[in-house]
């Protein structure tokens, strides 16, 4: 009855095949290790730095608890305390939680997908280095009184120049804005990685749940982060140049910030939680030794959470005086988002119940059980704060502090510790101690509940959040003291974990501790620096359970792509739905360009913060130059022909057009740019609803005549036409077409001219951006246009250079395609902007 298993390749393999594979994936040694891009190396670096930020911000938390242990304490001054809680929140959210999850994506995803690496190894390395430099400098501001003190959500007007002079707030805005960019780079990597580098046969419905979770995580980042990027841009521009987006006297509105910030901020909580839930969905079946019960319902829950979490942002604004029914809609969405969590909790319980024999109680499973309990409590209080009238009382009190620590520590930190204990055998020579692990768990679990449970009550009996001290006699003393004691117990648990790390964590790529759990997914295949020796053919969700010999088969090279046929780093790109092999992607190895680009870009942002504009610009130029050098090396061309990956499948080693990973990355980037622009359109319309009286034609100079937008539109159409024509004119390999450089230059010129015409037209009417919120919004459209226009001009210049050096033709055309795709988007965005800026006031006025 046994089906004959046909394997893609024959063993034994040629003798030099493994050597070649090893040579291609060899790590740089010595100090050059910092140029490494292997996902296992930079993944561990990434998660290590994120964990460092967890420890640092945790110390700040303990300092706060110490200050609040007794009433009227003066251990920490008011000003320092305000900086500490701002940095604590900001670091935990932006420098720990999101990066830690992205780091797990970088580290675990390629292993789970048995891909040799993520599709853009240098992009992830770039994102990581930018984050490390930017993050460390941001955090260090706490040591020299330069830290922001507006709270992690930085509400204006408090954060405007008038109420927050000094550079403190700018460090938040530029530092965080910059780290958001790095998060988006990671998200692009993850989306393309999950959809295109799965092993042959792993259809969407056979993906490990963690891959689903990361896919939705990355998609949410794409939609949510642009909103906060726009918000930070608006606030920084108002602080630096006085464009009144948030100043009520000039037609701005402080609530605009809250809308934009929470449109990011609420999904952010789920952005953090979803990957953690995905990790739990991996660990529970492994400990139960049974497949996840309700795999498809878990997918439903992940996707549902992803969507519904975008309908909750007003949840944080229930007390701002918004009409009752509007609050009702968002309260309803808050109810909707609770159900996916219910599904997941019941699915985990069902899987535990279905265990073969009994559910194994190991340190990872303890953390998972602790998570289940804490997260349930956090979910329950989440429903409570979603009840609008109840939120009127508990909003901005310690009840909310308790709630979100239950959700975040319960929903993310406990699964993360489970992850550490569970996956460290995959990347370390030794596993962590199960005995110490139990101590770590119980200290953390008890410490956590002792710290945060009393806070529910502290909040209900009146203690607001973000207070550096409180008076005696309000009944808060005992509860606060208990919380402080709890925080020390929690900290002791974390400290014990750090000790265990020092004792036993020995990173390695070749001799890991193996699979102590007998799990079913591909990350437990035997690996080297090249990941799995051959890329397995997958026919189920738990390939290692369904085929116990899979490890041996893979190790013997009997699955796909057992060597490095092009002599370089490569992996298989498969189709997005059913994962059928499409082509071989040739990936870059170690390099300096991305590193230089990252460090100088971080330097540019930070120098800008302290107003050293000239040096900042120099750094920016160096960074862009490094990016160009980096990009120049990527488009290899079809020179290597086709290779046989096994089973008689021959794949090309080069791909252009809609199937190529470059095309996909650009498409994702365009989605990011468009969500940024949609957030702008929302802001424009929102400020109009709030202050129609400053809008043209009544409150501001009349719009420029119809000729202006019409001329601008014609320029855009001409440029687009020129770009389209270039595609038709691309010569066959080896041929020439001298018109290409001027045509590309013409397209870039048209775009630049259109941008300038739009600015100039408004300037001529006498409208100034600092005049009122209308003026600010009109010119803001051009600020956003400038970003894409600048990128298009650089890419067009790049394409021209590629052509002139003979690296651009009808086949080898990725350099052109990237420029063209972004160009079409830029033209579209600017046309939409013309309709909005020139059409809307005429219609509404």
């Amino acid at each position, binding site marked *: 009855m046994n089906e004959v298993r046909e394997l893609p390749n024959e063993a034994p393999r040629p003798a030099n095949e493994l050597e070649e594979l090893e040579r291609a994936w060899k790590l740089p040694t010595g100090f050059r290790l910092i140029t490494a891009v292997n996902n296992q190396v930079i993944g561990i670096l990434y998660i290590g730095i994120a964990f460092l930020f967890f420890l640092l911000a945790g110390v700040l938390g303990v300092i706060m608890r110490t200050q609040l242990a007794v009433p009227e304490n003066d251990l920490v001054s008011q000003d320092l305390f305000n900086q500490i809680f701002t940095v604590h929140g900001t670091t935990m959210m932006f420098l720990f939680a999101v990066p830690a999850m992205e780091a797990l994506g970088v580290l675990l995803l390629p292993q789970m997908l048995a891909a040799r690496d993520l599709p853009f190894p240098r992009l992830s390395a770039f994102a990581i280095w930018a984050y490390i430099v930017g993050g460390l400098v941001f955090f260090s501001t706490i040591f020299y009184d330069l830290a922001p003190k507006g709270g992690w959500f930085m509400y204006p007007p408090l954060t405007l120049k008038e109420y927050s002079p000094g550079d403190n707030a700018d460090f938040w805005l530029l530092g965080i804005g910059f780290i958001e960019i790095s998060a988006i780079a990671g998200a692009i990597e993850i989306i393309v990685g999950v959809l295109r580098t799965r092993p042959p046969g792993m259809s969407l419905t056979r993906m490990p749940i963690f891959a689903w979770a990361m896919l939705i995580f990355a998609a949410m980042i794409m939609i949510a982060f642009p909103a906060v990027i726009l918000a930070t841009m608006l606030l920084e521009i108002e602080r630096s140049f006085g464009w009144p987006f948030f100043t009520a006297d000039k037609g701005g509105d402080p609530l605009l910030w809250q809308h934009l910030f929470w449109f990011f901020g609420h999904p952010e909580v789920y952005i953090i939680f979803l990957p953690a839930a995905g990790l739990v969905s991996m660990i529970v079946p492994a400990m139960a030794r049974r497949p996840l019960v309700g795999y498809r319902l878990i997918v439903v829950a992940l996707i549902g959470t992803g969507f519904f979490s975008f309908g909750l942002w007003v949840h944080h604004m229930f007390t701002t005086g918004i009409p009752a029914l509007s609050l009702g809609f968002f309260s309803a969405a808050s109810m909707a988002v609770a159900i996916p969590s219910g599904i997941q909790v019941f699915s985990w319980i069902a899987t535990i119940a279905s265990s073969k024999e009994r559910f194994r109680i190991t340190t990872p499973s303890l953390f998972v059980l602790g998570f289940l*309990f804490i997260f349930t409590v956090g979910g329950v209080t989440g429903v409570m704060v979603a*009840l609008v009238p*109840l939120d*009127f009382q508990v909003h901005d009190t310690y009840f909310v502090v308790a709630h979100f620590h239950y959700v975040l520590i319960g929903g993310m930190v406990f699964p993360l510790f489970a992850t550490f204990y569970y996956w460290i055998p995959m990347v370390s020579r030794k596993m962590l101690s199960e005995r110490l692990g139990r101590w770590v768990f119980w200290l953390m679990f008890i410490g956590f*509940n002792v710290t945060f*449970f009393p806070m529910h009550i502290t909040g209900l009996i009146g203690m607001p959040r973000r207070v550096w001290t409180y008076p005696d006699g309000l009944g*808060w003393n005992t509860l606060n003291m208990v919380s402080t004691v709890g925080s020390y117990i929690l900290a002791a648990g974390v400290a014990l974990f750090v000790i265990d790390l020092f004792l036993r964590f020995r990173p390695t790529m070749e001799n890991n501790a193996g699979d102590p759990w007998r799990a079913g997914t591909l990350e437990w295949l035997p690996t080297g620096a090249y990941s799995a020796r051959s890329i397995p053919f997958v026919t189920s969700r738990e390939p290692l359970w369904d085929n116990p010999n899979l490890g041996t088969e893979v190790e013997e090279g009997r699955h796909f792509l057992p060597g490095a046929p092009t002599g370089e780093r490569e992996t298989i790109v498969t189709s997005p739905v059913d994962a059928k092999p499409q082509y071989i992607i040739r990936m870059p190895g170690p390099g300096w360009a991305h590193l230089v680009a990252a460090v100088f870009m971080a330097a540019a942002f930070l120098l800008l913060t302290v107003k050293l504009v000239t040096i900042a610009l120099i750094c920016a130029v160096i960074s862009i130059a490094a990016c160009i050098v980096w990009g120049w090396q990527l488009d290899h061309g079809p020179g290597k022909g086709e290779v046989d990956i096994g089973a008689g499948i021959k794949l090309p080693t080069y791909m252009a057009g809609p199937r190529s990973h470059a095309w996909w990355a650009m498409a994702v980037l365009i989605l990011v740019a468009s969500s940024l622009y949609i957030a702008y359109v929302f802001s424009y319309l929102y400020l109009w609803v709030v202050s129609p009286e400053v809008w043209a034609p009544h409150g501001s100079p009349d719009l420029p005549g119809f000729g202006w937008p019409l001329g601008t539109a014609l320029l855009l159409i001409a440029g687009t036409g020129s770009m389209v024509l270039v595609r038709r004119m691309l010569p066959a390999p080896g041929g020439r077409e001298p018109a290409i450089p001027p045509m590309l230059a013409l397209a870039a010129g048209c775009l630049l001219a259109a941008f300038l015409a739009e600015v100039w037209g408004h300037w001529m009417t006498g409208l100034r951006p600092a005049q009122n919120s209308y003026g600010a919004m009109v010119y803001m459209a051009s600020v956003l246009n400038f970003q894409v226009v600048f990128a298009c001009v650089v890419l067009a210049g790049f394409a021209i250079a590629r052509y002139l050096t003979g690296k651009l033709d009808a086949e080898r055309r990725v350099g052109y395609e990237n420029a063209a795709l972004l160009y079409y988007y830029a033209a579209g965005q600017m046309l939409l902007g013309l309709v909005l800026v020139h059409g809307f006031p005429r219609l509404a006025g």
Partner: protein
Amino acid sequence: MRFGKGWVFRAIALSALPGIASCSGVQSALSPRGVEALRIDPLFWTSAAVGLAVTLMVVILVAAALYGPPRWRERLSGDRMLIGGGIVLPIIVLTGLFTYGLLVMQAGAVRGEQETDATVTITGKLWWWEVVYEGPDGKAVLSANELRLPVGRPVRLRLESDNVIHSFWAPQIAGKLDMIPGRTNEVVVEATEPAVSRGQCAEYCGGAHALMAFYVVAMAQAEYDAWLAREAGPAVEPVSEEAARGREIFFEHGCGACHQVRGTEARGVIGPDLTHVGSRKSLAAGMMSNDAQAFARWIVDNQHIKPENKMPPFGQFSEEELSALAAYLDSLE
């Protein structure tokens, strides 16, 4: 059982909750003395009870999944359990809670639209509260850091800010509502019994946010009317010699540039109105008890008592001058 220790602690904490509620302080949302707070209170207890039930259910199910007999475990791992417990049950429970929440909200919305015969405008300052009543003759009566309410009569609060965002929260009376520059938020409150309670700024407003409190004094209608009539009047003349000397010092040192004392030439509008400051429950926005000593301390040491506040410390007074000044201010009842 593995859950042992943590669970026992939690059970104790939860059972202690009602106890804490009954003896809780003047700033507790769990001892409501206002119409809105009284409406929210049962919503809280209902949702807390439902939450407790849900948590208990999950704990019991996890325990059963871990250690239950095979028959239970088999039932727990079925699709029916998953859809029933993960989808159907939450939908039913949430619909119930949500409807209850909406009904409470609608009651508040209806109340917000009704006519009231008293209006108080409260403006959030850095870091104190300006409170403006409508006097008996319709004129504005300026006061600060204290809200007086007539028991049993709805009063409309108009909440504003001319600087950063604050949030007005008197937990025993009603839920909080933000004060946002460029907007006026309104809420109708009604105290149900004569009592003194405390409130505090709930939206982080920078600097001394933690030190921005106030008292709510709910009093019988007749008392309230008498109080308002007195509050609308000018400041009393100093009776003691020391207080009279204090008044001279008050003007010599330019205190009137920032503070107003109605009935004198002090017309400042930067700091709180001091016309009847001696009759208030507290000084410095709920930070100190109100007596002559406190005035003296505040004048000299205010940057320590409330760091970053906008009043400079006045250290130049001799001891006699200071006590005279304090006596004058204390006499402004």
